[in-house]
């Protein structure tokens, strides 16, 4: 009898186990049917949600977990950048087409020698607490970015071309040549012409911050809603770290009439499955973190979006080590990768195969796409023709003195384990074996990985860059011999010379030519191996209207609305 009961119970548990598995399986399988179901029930959950947040039109979204910081000077992350974009406004802004547009400044001009930039502020600008905002606030904020005690990570990127930066970064803040001759005029003097300085004037690091608040609260000013005074379309009205940031419409914003939402709720969800659940129930109308295992079932869903951002997933080769000091070997390794397969299949179409180093979204000096003008309009690597590439790779390796990989030492590939990194590593192992290369994969924990790569303590490794602004120098600078991010230690005099010209010339055509020449050299020398271009992929309810996504990885919700 007892045995029978046990057997019965065993059967029950097994069934329980099976249904449990079936449950999660169904979640993946019935994607399309499920979304229609969830949009229907969205309204009910939403109305109760809205009622609990004191009414009004609140857009609930997810773009990442808790930002490390939302102090404009300290932020260096994309999720923090999204918050800054909605709570602050710089002198200039970037419009839906990626073009510079007026921001806090309604107009601006450059002197003939390109060294003096003058910005004319709008009249009647105010902070979110209702007090006046003047050009002096920009003077204070820009100097603050240089302050070594603030230690802003982007200080050098955004201000190194301003006269007096070196001194200011050493502690003498007043050396920085930024001035406010009157309340509505802000003047910047550069030490060398910088054609893309306008993009920097729209860069979140250079947002104005309120001196009185910052001085009264120190670094802590940017950690609670009460002291977080801003000047953008929204201000933070509630912040529960690890849970959500609630932004409310800023009535003092100069363009407040154009803002339709009463607020934006940024749900600080860390787990992709959790954010997907919240999206399915309608608690959140847009999520950035979509579980990768759901992507195949979401491909044809109109709510699933894939949009390029300026950035490239590439491999660094340690050029100081054998056999990577031979350009033929580097090129062979590059050509032996089937990029269409990696981006389309392994990365599930969330990346795009890279034929160049500089992908879509980078803007040439005349405003056209940099990529369209590269290599005489031809891709550097014909990604559609992998078979031919593979043959060429074998030939190159033979030319280098390693026919069929004979005599090549074993190579290690180092990567951290996140996203598709491991899948790519396994693919490389297999792909490079085709040309006779013996590849060992080494998975390194994130915090140890970055310093290891920077110190050149690797053979080959994963690398990547997402642009801060759309000027090509932002990414091409990575291979300048002395650049801090030149992890492969690429050292080419011609390349450096081309980049030097791009920095100093005032002639747009000459600058463009120099930048293209630099990319030509980089690709010819295979200074790195571009694999794929980054995309952002996300789920967004069709109820959201008037929002857009930029190639910088930002979502613009300030002018959005929620359709009933």
């Amino acid at each position, binding site marked *: 009898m007892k045995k029978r009961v046990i057997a019965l*119970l065993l059967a029950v548990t097994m069934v329980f186990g099976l249904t449990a598995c079936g449950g999660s399986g169904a979640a993946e399988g019935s994607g399309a049917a499920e979304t229609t179901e969830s949009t229907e029930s969205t309204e009910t959950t939403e109305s109760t949600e809205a009622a609990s947040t004191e009414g009004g039109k609140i857009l609930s979204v997810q773009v990442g977990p808790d930002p490390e910081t939302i102090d404009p000077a300290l932020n260096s992350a994309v999720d923090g950048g999204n918050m800054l974009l909605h709570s602050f406004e710089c002198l200039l802004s970037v419009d839906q087409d990626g073009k510079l547009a007026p921001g806090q400044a309604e107009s601006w001009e450059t002197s003939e020698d390109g060294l003096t930039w003058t910005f004319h502020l709008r009249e009647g600008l105010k902070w979110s607490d209702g007090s006046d905002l003047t050009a002096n606030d920009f003077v204070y904020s820009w100097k603050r970015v240089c302050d070594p005690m603030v230690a802003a990570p982007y200080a050098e990127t955004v201000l190194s071309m301003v006269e007096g930066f070196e001194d200011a*970064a050493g502690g003498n803040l007043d050396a920085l040549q930024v001035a406010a001759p009157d309340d509505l005029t802000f003047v910047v003097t550069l030490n060398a012409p910088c054609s893309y300085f306008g993009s920097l004037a729209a860069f979140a690091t250079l947002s104005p911050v309120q001196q009185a608040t910052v001085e009264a609260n120190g670094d802590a000013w940017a950690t609670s809603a009460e002291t977080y005074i801003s000047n953008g379309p929204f201000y933070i009205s509630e912040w529960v770290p*690890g849970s959500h940031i609630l932004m409310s419409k800023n009535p003092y914003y100069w363009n407040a009439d154009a803002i339709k939402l009463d607020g934006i709720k940024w749900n600080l969800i860390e787990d992709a499955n959790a954010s997907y659940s919240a999206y399915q129930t309608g608690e959140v109308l847009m999520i950035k973190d979509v579980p990768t295992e759901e992507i195949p079932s979401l491909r044809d869903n109109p709510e699933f979006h894939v949009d390029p951002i300026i950035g490239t997933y590439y491999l660094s080769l340690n050029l100081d080590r054998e056999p990577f000091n031979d350009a033929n070997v580097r090129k062979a390794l590059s050509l032996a990768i089937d990029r269409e397969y990696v981006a389309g299949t392994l990365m599930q179409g969330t990346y795009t195969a890279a034929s160049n180093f500089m992908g879509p979204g980078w803007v040439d000096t005349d405003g056209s796409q940099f990529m369209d003008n590269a290599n005489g309009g031809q891709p550097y690597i014909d990604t559609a023709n992998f078979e031919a590439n593979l043959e060429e790779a074998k030939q190159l390796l033979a030319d280098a003195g390693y026919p069929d990989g004979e005599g090549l030492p074993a190579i290690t590939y180092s990567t951290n384990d996140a996203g598709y990194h491991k899948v790519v590593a396994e693919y490389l192992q297999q792909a490079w074996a085709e040309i006779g290369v013996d590849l060992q994969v080494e998975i390194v924990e994130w915090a140890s990985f970055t310093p290891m790569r920077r110190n050149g303590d690797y053979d080959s490794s994963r690398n990547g860059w997402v642009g801060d602004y759309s000027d090509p120098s932002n990414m091409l600078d990575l291979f300048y011999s002395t650049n801090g991010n030149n992890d492969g230690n690429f050292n080419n005099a011609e390349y450096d010379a081309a980049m030097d010209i791009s920095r100093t010339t005032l002639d747009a055509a000459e600058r463009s030519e120099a930048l293209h020449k630099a990319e030509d050299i980089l690709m010819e020398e295979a200074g790195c191996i571009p694999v794929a271009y980054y995309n952002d992929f996300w789920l967004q309810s069709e109820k959201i209207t008037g929002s857009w996504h930029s190639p910088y990885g930002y979502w613009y919700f300030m002018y959005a609305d929620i359709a009933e």
Partner: protein
Amino acid sequence: MLKYVAKRIGLAIVTIWAVATITFFLMNLVPGGPFLSEKAISPQATAALEAKYGLDKPLFQQYLTYIGDALHGDFGDSLKQRGRTVMDIILMKFPVSARVGGISVLVSLLVGVPLGCIAALKRGKFLDSLISVISTCGIAVPSFVICTLLLYFFGVKLMILPTLGLTSWKHYIMPVMALSFYPTAYIMRLMRSSMLDVLGQDYMRTAKAKGLAGGIILFKHALRNAILPVITYVGPLLAYTVTGSFVVEKIFTIPGLGGEFISAINGRDYTLIMGTTIFLATLIIVMNVVVDIVYKIVDPRIKLK
């Protein structure tokens, strides 16, 4: 008793100091640092940051400074969450975890103890087998599986419970269920076996022979003796549960302390690693002392030495 408590507190301070010291040197042995990102921060900025937080000093000097400050109750600023002190973070997040965790422990006790007793009293019967199956499941199934299943059924499919945040009583149901599943199962098993042990004792037979009522025998004689192992278990359990669970907090988007333990280590936020570790160690030690005292109250035969 007082003497005992004083002695335990003295020992506790030594233990915490040892934990702090070992953690301090171990975390500095691990490669990496707090000011790293994919994009290299300029050497000046890194140097400025290190100077600001005293990381440019020799390690042993950093250690002395840290211990000195900690003795004055200053656990420093978080290196990653700029503008927040370690104390701010713990004081802000601990109450949240403590609420969810405290309720979970209470639920585990309220469910686990009676079910364990029933299983023991109905030994070998159907009910006993059923309870033992449930408790086996509870122990074997990891919490992220339970979380995901709960989220899927109650949140996404049935849509009767909210999936994120902690703003109403409804929000507590799933996290509490997920957190209490394992301890409930464990307490059931513990209770069952110790109850069985007690039921077989001579004094139980004596009590029965004296003609005492079944209820009195069960509550006064059996339960009081059988619950001792559960108390031992619940002490440290409480310390661990009220400091939050990384998995449960992540999946239900609860702003608790559990996530900080992990993110502090991943981000090499040295001061936060120290703060959370010392905090957890202190709680565990305190709970152990409390358990010892409760022991003495429940069972006067136990001598505290």
